[in-house]
């Protein structure tokens, strides 16, 4: 998932760094003035969605948040972080290769027509087909027949539909994967797997502008009017009467307010012009705790931040002791507490605490130990000068500088932080051999499974096409991940993934630095606000206070 909040924070944080410095605590909660006439909606903060509201082309957080209100996923994630059926009646498999998805009856599109298995097949085939250039295409890479519809750069697809998708009847979809994958059910809660009504596709074979502005979903809320992206300051929704699942009690109107700066949204929350703010700026955290009290929440977020090592590009970092020494020389606790004001926590595993499979303290080399680090580094003959690349557009400068200071002081070497304009610039520079230093790297999950922290970033198959930018390759690791994929139940698969994780912890291809946290708060007008594993709100649970 790409995080456009990053981009927005350029406009926000970079310009408005001074932010809430003047903000004193101890504000009283005066009741807001009631707007005359009609129901006051529950108002939620978002950044402007990057694309039109089309689930198959939305892989960033803001658009996903809106779509999550409009569509109902096949699975949701329960308290134990396990996928449970939502729009699906059952999702079964015997071999992790052929999956049978039975749909729950009673679901209708917002135009009244029933939802069928064909609507799912249509959406997934549309997303996978290369010519449609949908950003969620890669989610279907495991489905049998993906190669035919998505053969790669410069090649023409030989089919329009994936042969692995079979509509058995109106309520049954059979999915055959190219290879077994035990975590497939977990993937199904994501935006890319929402269905698509027939009317979404126009005569030219593309998703229509009208659908992108006012998507017809099968979820709890429907859009009241088309959302003109770039012009409308809000997205207005109301509860869909015929939604068969749980509906909120006492309220029916939802409003997403588009903000360009999270600082401004925070001021609006204090003035009770906004009800839910799920990306409180780091500058506001200490004030927010005071002002909001028990309306402030701080929960683990599934994203992770690393220092990447260019294994493939630079011999200097190929000795594992060099990487270990660098890792031990980083004072994670101080960085997360001071640079990030507690909005991150020190990383101690490759798997994030928000996801099943995380083991506390698993990463021994993630413990701060400057004396040992220096000894190890010198014994291993680590490079005397290091470059530390980062992209300048996402608020990374401060923590990269902090890491650089750690390395200078603790390893006695010369460290130069090197800004790139965008993250892509680092990758291009590595590929063209213009740059061969360490680099900043982050990962936001695509689906909440431990496997998602392994294959796409460290698998040999992810070099070149995936996100394995450092070029790490380890046969044992690949085999263990494959064993996990082939397992017939999720829990058994997890064991193998953890063994694969152990190899990463030993090899340290990347150096985990911090886990993200979600900092959100709400106004006095609502209560029972909860985020799910994908950082989306459980709307049905919210009550008006």
């Amino acid at each position, binding site marked *: 998932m*790409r*995080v*456009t909040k*990053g*981009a927005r924070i*350029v*406009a926000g944080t970079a*310009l*408005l760094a*001074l932010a809430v410095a*003047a*903000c004193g605590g101890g*504000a*009283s909660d*005066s009741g807001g*003035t009631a707007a005359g006439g009609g129901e006051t909606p529950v108002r939620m903060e978002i950044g402007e969605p990057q*694309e*039109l509201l089309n689930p198959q082309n939305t892989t*960033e957080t803001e658009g996903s948040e809106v779509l999550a209100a409009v569509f109902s996923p096949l699975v949701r994630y329960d308290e134990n972080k396990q996928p449970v059926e939502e729009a699906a009646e059952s999702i079964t498999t015997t071999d992790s290769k052929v999956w049978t998805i039975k749909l729950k009856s009673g679901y209708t599109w917002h135009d009244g027509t029933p939802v069928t298995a064909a609507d799912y097949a249509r959406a997934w085939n549309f997303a996978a087909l*290369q010519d449609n*250039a949908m*950003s969620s*295409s*890669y989610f279907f890479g495991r489905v049998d027949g993906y190669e035919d519809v*998505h*053969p*790669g*750069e410069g*090649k023409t697809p030989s089919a329009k539909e994936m042969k692995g998708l079979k509509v058995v009847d109106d309520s049954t979809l059979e999915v055959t994967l190219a290879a077994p994958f035990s975590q497939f059910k977990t993937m199904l809660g994501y935006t890319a797997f929402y269905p698509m009504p027939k009317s979404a596709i126009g005569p030219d074979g593309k998703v229509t*502008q009208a659908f*992108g502005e006012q998507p017809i979903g099968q979820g709890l809320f429907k859009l009241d009017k088309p959302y*003109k*992206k*770039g*012009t409308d*300051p809000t997205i207005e929704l109301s509860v869909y009467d015929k939604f068969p699942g749980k509906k909120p009690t006492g309220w029916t109107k939802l409003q997403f*307010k*588009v*903000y*360009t*700066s999270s600082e*401004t*949204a925070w*001021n*609006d929350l*204090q*003035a009770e*012009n906004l009800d839910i703010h799920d990306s409180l700026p780091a500058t506001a955290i200490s004030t927010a705790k005071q002002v909001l009290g028990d309306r402030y929440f701080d929960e683990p977020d599934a994203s992770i931040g690393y220092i990447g090592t260019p294994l493939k590009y630079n011999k200097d970092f190929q000795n594992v002791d060099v990487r270990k020494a660098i890792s031990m020389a980083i004072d994670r606790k101080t960085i997360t507490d001071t640079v990030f004001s507690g909005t991150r926590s020190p990383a101690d595993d490759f798997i994030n605490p928000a996801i099943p499979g995380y083991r506390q303290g698993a990463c021994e080399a993630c413990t701060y130990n400057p004396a040992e680090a220096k000894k190890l580094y010198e014994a291993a003959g680590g490079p005397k000068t290091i470059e530390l690349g980062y992209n300048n*557009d996402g608020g990374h400068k401060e923590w990269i500088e902090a890491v650089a200071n750690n390395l200078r002081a603790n390893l006695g070497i010369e460290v130069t932080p090197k800004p790139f*304009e*965008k*993250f*892509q610039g680092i*990758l291009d520079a590595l590929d063209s051999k213009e740059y061969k230093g360490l680099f900043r*790297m*982050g990962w936001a999950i695509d689906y909440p499974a431990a496997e998602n922290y392994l294959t796409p970033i460290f698998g040999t198959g992810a070099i070149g*096409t*995936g*996100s394995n*930018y450092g070029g790490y390759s380890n046969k044992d690791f690949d085999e263990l991940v494959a064993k996990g994929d082939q397992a017939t139940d999720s829990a058994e698969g997890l064991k193998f993934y953890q063994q694969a994780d152990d190899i990463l912890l030993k090899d340290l291809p990347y150096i985990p630095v911090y886990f993200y946290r979600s900092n959100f708060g709400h106004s006095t007008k609502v209560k029972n606000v909860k985020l799910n594993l994908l950082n989306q709100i459980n709307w049905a649970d919210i009550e008006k206070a």
Partner: protein
Amino acid sequence: MGRYVIRRLIQAIPVLLGATLLIFCIVFALPGDPIAALFGDKRPDPAIAEVLREQYHLNDPLLLQYWYYISGVLFRGDFGVNFADIPVSQIMAGKFQITLNLALTALTMEAVIGVGLGLWAALRRGKATDTMILASTLLLISVPTLVTGFVLQLLLGVKLKQWTGADIFPVAGTFAGWRSYLLPGFVLAGTSIAYLTRLTRTSLAETLRADYIRTATAKGLSRRRVVGRHGLRNALIPLVTYLGADLGNLMGGAVITETIFNLQGIGNQLFTSVYLREQPVVVGIVTVLVLVYILANLVVDLLYAVLDPRIRYE
């Protein structure tokens, strides 16, 4: 006069065309791949990037790309689309409305407050009022918009509502109609108010020392008539020049104010679009801004003739 206006407008055409080409080239020359930027911190799927590049003509040479763009504008009135396939004309229509409201509010405040204070200071030159006005304008000039914006938003937006319960100055957005623009308008106008005050003061003080003012006073005209009719009118020329040029600044340069007050205007859009390398959006907006400058300058030139009868346009 009519002929002069038409000639000026015809002269604007090559300026506008040149501006579009220049901006187009500049955005083109910026480093980085616009398609990659769409994928954030992930490497884009090469197959998909290829389809998108083809779709937006990014593989073609610069001049051909420019031809696609400019022929669309000239022959079809089509300003192109951004990378989310939203027509640029739709983006511009919504955002210019907001920015225009903001700029006009700011301009009115400048004219009223700036000229008013300057007039007052000029008439009380050397006295305590004058010193106080000068000191406060100095403060207004030295404090960055960022600070005034946040402080005023917090005090008049957030705290005032918390204390009184009345929503007088909205914190952000355009939901309260014209009231939404008062606070951001003032913040945006801040430094200009200060400059204009000082400009008015100096210009008027200068004029008031002129011989014809002495003559007017000696003729026995009332003080109001001397200052208003003979003094201020002649002192207005530099002020009008400043205001005219400032309109363009206010429209294109309001990024910070727009961000603080969450006004989804043109400044912010320009910032994002340059970041995302959305050529058609950047070119469209900048061209309109150039047009605003041209028109504002024309109006200023015409106003010279009104203010000073000695100036004539053939």
